[in-house]
């Protein structure tokens, strides 16, 4: 038997290019559906997990998908704003804790997430360096954001408007980095977290400038009486929010009307969640409530439908490839007729010759399966990073 294996092995090694192409073709045919299944399975598991960890989302009426994607993954366009009053309204129901979210601004490519301290225990985020947010003007960075911005506690980062076409006059604001979060492997790693009021200052709803009632501010003051001060546009607005100038910041308008992108509602219990959902289900409601799990299930249902088509296509291509491989082996036997005749003449039994040819096929199949198994293993261990890299580098 060893001689049969030896001869088959020598043949495959001698025709290494042909052998390599055969192994690669079979490997790809076996690996592709496995990899597709694996990546989709694991990614959908993770997407569902983040959605499942977010019981209810409140937003302005509009696309539930946009609301869920922006609030959970900080991806896509910011949803239409809703009033901050919803936070107090939810608190008054005593059915849920409300976590406000304000999105839309960025530091480099990283989203600025305005929220409350409840967000961090809710997402199980802990501090790796520095401390949590305490005052306006401070920022806590996700692990990946800290790496890519090369920022650490004691440093600073500068916000950018949501769009380069933002002509509404929102100035960049320098945020003081006070903490960096432990890596979690979630979209939170990419975030620049600030207090909700800092987000409003970044959005231009609040601002700080020298005290116009102070006599030393007279250089900017055009007119002053008991109840009104008119200053020129040269009044210097602070771009840094520091503990020293914090008292000079103020907001304009009623806080209840300040904008939020979404509110995460964490019901006291399951019954409270259902009650809360019921209260906002009316089509006339100015607020939309969604269950992120349902939104993600809808999205993934579409993906899995497409996956079926892809798998059928892969199966057809696989069948065609296997047929081609069978043809290659048959043609190869025809081409090797003289070699086979020689083996028979020097005393090889026909069964022996068939065993050598069969072993060659078997070795190619075994090598292909091993390669496919190896690639699947690599995909299991590093698939997410590879996929992420492929997507980010524009290959996919």
């Amino acid at each position, binding site marked *: 038997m060893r001689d049969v294996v030896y001869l088959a092995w020598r043949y495959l090694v001698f025709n290494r290019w042909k052998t390599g192409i055969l192994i690669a073709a079979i490997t790809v045919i076996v690996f592709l559906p496995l990899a597709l299944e694996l990546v989709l399975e694991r990614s959908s598991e993770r997407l569902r997990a983040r959605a499942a960890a977010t019981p209810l989302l409140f937003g302005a009426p509009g696309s539930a998908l946009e609301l869920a994607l922006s609030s959970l993954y900080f991806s896509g366009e910011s949803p239409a704003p809703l009033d901050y009053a919803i936070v107090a309204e939810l608190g008054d129901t005593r059915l849920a804790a409300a976590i406000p979210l304000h999105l839309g601004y960025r530091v480099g490519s990283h989203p600025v997430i305005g929220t409350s301290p409840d967000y961090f225990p809710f997402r199980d985020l802990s501090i790796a360096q520095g401390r949590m947010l305490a005052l306006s003007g401070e920022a806590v960075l996700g692990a990946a954001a800290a790496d890519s911005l090369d920022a650490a506690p004691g440093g600073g980062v500068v916000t950018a408007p949501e769009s380069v076409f933002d002509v509404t006059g929102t100035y960049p604001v320098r945020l003081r980095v006070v903490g960096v979060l432990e890596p979690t492997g979630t979209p939170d790693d990419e975030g620049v977290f600030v*207090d909700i009021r800092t987000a409003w200052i970044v959005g231009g709803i609040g601002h700080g400038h020298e005290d116009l009632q102070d006599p030393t501010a007279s250089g900017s003051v055009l007119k002053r009486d008991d109840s009104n001060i008119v200053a020129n546009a040269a009044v210097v607005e602070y771009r840094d929010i520091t503990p020293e100038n914090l*008292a000079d910041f103020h907001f304009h308008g009623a806080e209840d009307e300040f904008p939020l992108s979404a509110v995460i509602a964490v019901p006291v219990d399951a019954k409270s969640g259902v009650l809360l959902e019921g209260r906002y289900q009316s089509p006339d409601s100015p607020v939309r409530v969604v269950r992120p799990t349902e939104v993600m299930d809808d999205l993934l249902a579409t993906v899995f439908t497409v996956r079926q088509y892809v798998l059928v296509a892969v199966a057809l291509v696989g069948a065609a490839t296997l047929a081609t491989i069978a043809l290659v082996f048959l043609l190869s036997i025809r081409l090797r007729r003289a070699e086979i005749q020689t083996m028979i003449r020097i005393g090889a039994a026909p069964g022996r010759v068939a065993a050598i040819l069969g072993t060659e096929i078997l070795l190619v199949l075994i090598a292909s399966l091993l390669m496919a198994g190896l690639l699947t293993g690599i995909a299991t261990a590093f698939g997410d990073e590879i996929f992420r890299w492929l997507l980010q580098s524009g290959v996919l």
Partner: protein
Amino acid sequence: MKGTVRRLASLGSLLALVGCEPAEQGAMVGPAPPSGDATVEIYAINYPLAWMAERIGGDAARVTLPVPEGVDPAHWQPSAETVLAYQRADIVLLNGAGYAAWTEFASLSPSRLVDTTRGLEDRFVSAGAMTHSHGPAGEHDHADVASHTWLDPELAAGQARAIEGAMVTRVPDRADALRQRLQSLVAELAALDQRLALAFQGWRGEGVLYSHPVYQYLDARYGLAGRSLTWEPGQDPGKGEWDALAARLAEAPAAVMLWEDEPLPATAGRLRAMGIEPVVFHTGAGPPATGDYLALMEENLGRLARFNETVGAGDN
């Protein structure tokens, strides 16, 4: 088809964001879940709120007021570490009405904040408004309301009810005890209200001055029609202020001036020479050196009674 492509595009960018760690777990947020025998951790921003929380909470509450001694809680700026301590409390008691501006710029969870004057806004007293305008933002108001709300005992009772309501949600099993203690506190505040009303009876015609604009709720509650200055007890007001006061007195005479703390003897003497009796009326914003809020008000009532005896006003 277009929708499907859009969904797939969304998923593509999502997968780029989703990492490789185990599934996320939703965590409990907000204050700790209600429990029958738990103690509610309460942080207050001024003494009257802390005192009311202690009175109502009894052994069900652990109340902290981290304002350093001698510092006016209205103008205090806590350190980041103190704000982090506030974040850990089950309940953070706010006075509302713009009191303690630092809370505007501190990162605190709405789920733990209790604005004790929410719903009482129609009782707020204006403290004047300042409008300013500059640049493209145009004119904007900095409307202000007076903030020492508890000086109106009726408003203080409303604030006490808000505190009790917040505590009941945290320890529902102790609701009966909390309600009983609230009723007792409200009764004491009503008694204080009656005694203050008697003490201030007849003051309207006296002409009342306030050393600082902190007595608006006392003024509104008892119809005193007083006027506020901005004099510090430990400082000489200066010639300008004395001249301004003399001009004011020429327009409308005054016989009494309420002070947050004992004025300098020279200031008190000069006021008396002008026919104005300085009377100390502590607001109780910060913790008293001895006793509690009611004891402090008792001392205030004593001083009012002595003044009334001197001039024959009031009926205490």
